[in-house]
């Protein structure tokens, strides 16, 4: 619990001008969900929840990553994917997947205004982490609507 509040403080205080105006209840809920996601699926090594407009809301990322820059890149990629689908067949993409030798990144919508980005280990298979991530994305969407 102590660790959680430290994380909340960190999230609240760095780069204050970007910080989303969200309640501590939501922040704590998101942090819990990310912790659970990483705990439940051994292949997932990092995750982030961010606003569709590219602002990090909560993250379990390597500390050297600039989370707002990263959030901005995630939203740009997903927004382009949304457009691509709209241009071609009017669907909404379930996720964007980036595969690399160093690991995979999945980016997906979590409710109407949030995104979930997930990192996996390089050796991970794709199915399990994706299934876990989709479940978490749904929970995030529901949490934000409820509160």
């Amino acid at each position: 619990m102590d660790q959680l509040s430290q994380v909340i403080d960190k999230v609240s205080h760095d780069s204050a001008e970007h910080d989303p105006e969200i309640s501590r209840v939501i922040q704590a809920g998101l942090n819990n969900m990310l912790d659970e996601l990483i705990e439940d699926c051994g292949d997932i090594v990092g995750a982030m929840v961010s606003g569709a407009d590219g602002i990090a809301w909560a993250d379990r990322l390597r500390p050297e990553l600039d989370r707002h820059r990263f959030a901005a890149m995630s939203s740009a990629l997903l927004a382009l994917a949304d457009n691509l689908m709209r241009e071609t067949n009017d669907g909404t993409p379930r996720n964007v997947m980036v595969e690399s030798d160093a690991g995979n990144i999945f980016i997906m919508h979590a409710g109407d205004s949030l995104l979930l980005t997930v990192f996996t280990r390089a050796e991970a298979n794709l199915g399990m982490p994706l299934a876990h991530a989709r479940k978490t994305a749904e929970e995030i969407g529901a949490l934000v609507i409820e509160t």
Partner: protein
Amino acid sequence: MMQLETDKIIFTGPVGAGKTSAIAAISDAPPVSTDVVCTGAERQLKATTTVAMDYSYIQLDEQRIHLYGTPGQERFQFMWEILTRGGLGLVLLINNDHPDPVAQMDFYLDAFADFIEETGVVIGITRRGINDHARLEDFQNRLLERGQIYPVIEIDGREPEDIRILIGALLAVLDYQDIPGE
């Protein structure tokens, strides 16, 4: 020279300057836009914001000019770099309703300094007459202080004719710079 690579103009400027509207106003095809809802402090300024790019094109005589709009926020700087690659020049839109529009102009001129150096820029002042924080001369004087001479034009970003004037001014700047010996 590869036509597709070079005939591309980039619209940039701060959040709320009217980049998306400007591209939508003059484009000859339905624009691609990546507007999403604002969740951060920007929510107080506007409901949606561009997160990847706006894209469309206009047909000028036989030349097709591709128009790309950047996100305004600094956290999207990676898109600024991606979108300016191979571009002809820059249209910088500045919202005169902002408390310090001249400083905003400074910021974007600095952020795009390398691209402007290689190409050129034209500055469009939008939202004039609502809550003006600077006069046209203030922008021109600031440019002179910076040792730069570029057109500063007052526009209505929703008016196709105004955007055409901006693009025409930019093309004139680029022509002038292409004169050997200049």
